[in-house]
């Protein structure tokens, strides 16, 4: 996927003025934020489960190679072929090779954010394969030629009218307006695609070291269809998704759907191990799993290592006041919201995503709701620190900070400077003592007035009090 994170500020400003988008984003608040709160409240030992979940993920990340090797061994014992890929391009090549090797042409895809990292659809289409997204949201985006704006609810930015228009244009059928009718139409359009596909591609919510299995959670059932009907199944996932045992996966499952959509469990949880059994009439004949690094291993041993605990629930973006107001597209790559503000700079280069670590009010809500206790604001602060260290901030900001730092280290100059500044601002504030416009800070005063200082600095007041 093309990286447009450098246009964050411009796109954020555009999106703030987009009334339709603002209406769509309001639903996120009521459904996801309130839904999560209710689902957490019904789990009596939530705190204990959350501690355990964070510990499981932390343990895996600390000994990642050991768990991956165990996984690989168990998967191979069941006839699953495990591939490793350094980059998204390598994933695309491996999938294209599998398709060529087995003579496959029709692909049905279940939702996978990792495949978005790779730009898999375009790569496969350029090889002459027919690719059909089957998650309703992803299917809508495929018709609209748009990237997802949320990792769990990919079309949160679209209204049902947008979708009605899109369907009536592409399906050559009368325009439907009800949500249930639209869903039925998509089901009927996609069903023949499932039945005729020869390659099913999915992601994985977890891979299980104990059994060499892939675990997939879905609500629509498209994940089950895409991994049951075609004769070859390829699952693509990040190397960090491994968990030790079925029990560990179960602990994480108590939190993933609750944090994501406010569900106690998703409609389907599928644990897939190996290929079609002897005598079995359904299931794939070949099962491939691709483990993608794409920058993940770089995080190990750094301050950003806790980010590898992430289970992709989306709670951080649902609760983020920045995301809630600008939506996901402004972030300019696959992962939006606070988790994206950490991951995007890591995956595409800090210099290509300068605004993202700063796209936060540091209210801390993302860390509060994270089911695996990732200290997201600390990680963003660390990236800000790196930006300064690597001289990536604009020269005006760098000069201003150096100047300030010099002044702050020279108390006499500081006192002189602040005395002059408060008097000037006090005078500019006029009788009402309000500043409507402040040179150099117009972004701040455009939407609000700034109260003018009273005319004396804190140090002057303090001095006056000590020597009456």
């Amino acid at each position, binding site marked *: 996927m093309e990286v447009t994170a450098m246009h964050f500020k411009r796109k954020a400003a555009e999106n703030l003025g987009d009334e339709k988008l603002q209406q*769509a984003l309001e*639903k996120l608040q009521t*459904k*996801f934020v309130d839904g999560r709160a209710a689902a957490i409240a019904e*789990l*009596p*030992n939530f705190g*204990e*489960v959350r501690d355990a979940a964070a510990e499981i993920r932390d*343990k895996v990340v600390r*000994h990642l*190679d*050991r*768990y*991956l*090797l*165990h996984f690989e061994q168990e998967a191979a014992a069941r006839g699953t072929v495990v591939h490793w890929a350094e980059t998204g391009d*390598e994933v695309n090549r491996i999938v294209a090779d599998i398709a060529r090797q087995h003579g496959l042409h029709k692909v049905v895809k279940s939702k996978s954010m990792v495949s978005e990292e790779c730009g898999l659809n375009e790569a496969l289409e350029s090889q002459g394969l027919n690719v059909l997204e089957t998650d*309703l*949201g992803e299917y809508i985006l495929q018709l609209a030629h748009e990237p997802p704006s949320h990792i769990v*609810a*990919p*079309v949160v930015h679209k209204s*049902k009218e947008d979708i009605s228009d899109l369907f009536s244009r592409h399906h050559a059928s009368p325009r439907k307006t009800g*949500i*249930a009718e*639209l*869903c039925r139409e998509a*089901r009927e359009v996609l*069903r023949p695609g*499932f039945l005729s596909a020869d390659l099913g591609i999915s992601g994985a919510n977890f891979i299980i070291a*104990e*059994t060499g*299995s892939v675990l997939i959670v879905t*609500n*629509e*059932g498209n994940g*089950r*269809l895409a991994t*049951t009907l075609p004769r070859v199944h390829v699952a693509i996932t990040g190397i960090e998704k491994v968990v*030790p*045992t079925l*029990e560990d996966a*179960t602990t994480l499952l108590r939190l993933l759907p609750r944090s994501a959509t406010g569900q106690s*469990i*998703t*409609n*389907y949880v599928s*644990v*897939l*191990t190996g290929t079609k*059994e*002897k005598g*079995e*009439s*359904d299931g794939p004949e070949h099962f491939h799993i691709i*483990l993608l690094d794409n920058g993940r*291993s770089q995080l*190990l*041993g750094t301050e950003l290592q806790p980010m590898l605990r992430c289970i992709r629930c989306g709670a951080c973006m649902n609760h983020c006041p920045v995301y809630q107001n600008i939506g996901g597209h402004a972030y300019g790559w696959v992962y939006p919201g606070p988790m994206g503000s950490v991951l995007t700079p890591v995956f595409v280069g800090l210099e290509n995503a300068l605004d993202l670590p700063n796209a936060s009010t540091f209210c801390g809500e993302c860390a509060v709701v994270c089911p695996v206790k990732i200290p997201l604001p600390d990680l963003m602060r660390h990236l800000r620190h790196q930006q300064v260290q690597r001289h990536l901030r604009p020269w005006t900001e760098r000069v201003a900070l150096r100047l300030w730092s010099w002044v702050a280290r020279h108390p006499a100059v500081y006192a002189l400077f602040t005395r002059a500044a408060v008097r000037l601002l006090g005078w500019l504030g006029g009788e009402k003592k309000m500043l409507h416009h402040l040179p150099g800070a117009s972004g701040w005063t455009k939407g609000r007035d700034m109260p003018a200082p009273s005319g004396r600095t804190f140090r002057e007041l303090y001095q006056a009090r000590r020597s009456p």
Partner: protein
Amino acid sequence: MNARENILARIGKARGSSIAADVDGEIRRHQRGPIPPLEDDLVKRFGERAVSLASDVARARTITEVPGLVAHYLIERQLPMQGVCWPALAPYGWNSVGIELQTRAARGDDLVGVTGAFAGIAETGTLMLLSGPETPATVSLLPETHIAILDAERIVATMEQAWDRLRVERGALPRAVNFVSGPSRTADIEQTVTLGAHGPYRVLIIIVG
């Protein structure tokens, strides 16, 4: 060096000489995490949770009552009386109540699928289905109506208990373990929940015993 070696080398280097954990032993022990406290009556809890996730739930004293209950359900909703079922469920006298079931994997145009269940999970009201030659996975997936027959004795408190039961009774995992919690659904359009996405529109669970 290929991708596998490169990735493993980078991970190994970052890990450094940190004390090697007993990963294999820990996986063999498969220790449970914290379990939420549940009420004692698991059958009641299972039924309540299943209904809250939009499954329909009926009780039968014995398996002989099941075909009658299924016929009643299908007629009441004006649903077709033909479908597919798992082979083990074929001999229960479906014909006598006017239901025609074929024993095979489901196709795209089958409208009713009748399955058993390996277990029911009371914590969430979830069915646990295992794939296999005698239990084709498509029967619970392709038809618009899924009917699951669940022995009350097979209702366990949590998924952890179900894993243990699977380890004892089967040893290894089948190709697919499918946990099913009600009809398929989507909330992709305006975050509004709609039942019947790509899988069944309705799920009837008949608890026997």
